């Protein structure tokens, strides 16, 4: 543990000794947490949302009374398996790079006649937003175990990677935080919460490749949009719009960095 402390040289030995002792107590806590998470893996309440999402995918709904079974998530109309690990990507019909949730909203508007902007403006966990989360859980579950491989063939996809990188390092707000303040180095933690380093490959099979995930602390299912939204809230930033360019650019940056990581979504998180 690098100790960039302004410690008088004489006290250095003491500090290192203490760091050792602290590290030892720390190891048992970390093992304890790992054991706790292991016990929760079997029987992840995310399964409830996956089942709800599957029903919503097939059910005829909305003003056009249609299902989502012909929605193109990037691998062809109605193809669900493998779609999650290649998102965000560029879509010709909307001429935009979209992530899973913003793409689902586009399909809900085009196929079912829902008002996409109204859904995007609905607070998380309410109305159709809740359904978008369940749909995203269903789509993600179909790619469990597959490896991330976001396409970077289209110039817009490469541009979004670069924009996402700059957004990732953008420091601001009363705390001067950026995403990198917490997710820029290996082996860092907030309290007992391990922080994946999202700046380099394999990026992280536990961070980007875990959401949507069920959060035990509040018993809610969270997609990546809500995960980024709440990160910015704790970064003391203003409110990032659902599906806004910043959130999709971050998805491209983290997704490309996670290339080759195995998706564990929908996961179970603190």
């Amino acid at each position, binding site marked *: 543990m690098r100790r960039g402390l302004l410690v008088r040289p004489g006290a250095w030995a003491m500090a290192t000794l203490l760091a050792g002792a602290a590290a030892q107590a720390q190891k048992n806590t970390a093992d304890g947490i790992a054991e706790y998470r292991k016990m929760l893996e079997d029987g992840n*309440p995310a399964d409830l949302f996956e089942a709800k999402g599957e029903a919503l995918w097939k059910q005829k709904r909305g003003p056009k009374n249609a299902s989502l079974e012909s929605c193109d998530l990037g691998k062809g109309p109605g193809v669900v398996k493998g779609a999650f690990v290649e998102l965000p990507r560029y879509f010709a019909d909307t001429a935009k790079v979209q992530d899973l949730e913003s793409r689902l909203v586009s399909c809900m508007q085009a196929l079912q006649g829902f008002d996409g902007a109204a859904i995007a403006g609905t607070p998380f966990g309410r109305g159709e937003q809740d359904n978008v989360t369940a749909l995203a859980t269903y789509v993600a579950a179909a790619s469990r175990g597959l490896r991330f491989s976001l396409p970077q063939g289209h110039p817009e996809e490469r541009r979004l990677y670069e924009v996402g990188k700059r957004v990732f390092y953008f420091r601001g707000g009363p705390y001067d935080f950026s995403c990198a303040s917490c997710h820029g180095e290996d082996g860092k933690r907030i309290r007992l919460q391990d922080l994946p380093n999202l700046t380099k490959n394999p990026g992280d099979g536990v961070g980007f490749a875990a959401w949507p995930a069920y959060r035990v602390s509040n018993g809610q299912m969270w997609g990546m949009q809500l995960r980024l939204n709440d990160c910015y809230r704790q970064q003391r930033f203003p409110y990032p719009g659902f599906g806004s360019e910043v959130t999709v650019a971050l998805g491209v940056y983290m997704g490309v960095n996670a290339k080759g990581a195995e998706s564990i979504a929908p996961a179970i998180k603190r």
Partner: protein
Amino acid sequence: MADPMRIRAQAQGDKAVVRVLMSHEMETGQRKDSAGKTIPAWFIQEVTASLNGSPVLTAQWGTAVSKNPFMQFTIRGAKAGDKVSVSWVDNRGDKRTDEATVA
């Protein structure tokens, strides 16, 4: 009407291990909403299970059982193809019953 339960029943020898996930808020009655008003208690009080129609399990739960509850139990003398049904009743009298086949 709450969302359906997820029931997985796995035959193991002459027994069946049953894992159940129920969709329920399980409010303790101790929480306050953002406006500071106490959210009333709303939780599953009684869970029953049966194998091919005959009762095998009765359980009573308090407010300490977690949200979207998980439960696991093992039924004796069950084999693949048998029907396991699980029911719950909450303190408002809402009910839900779902069934699964032992795999």
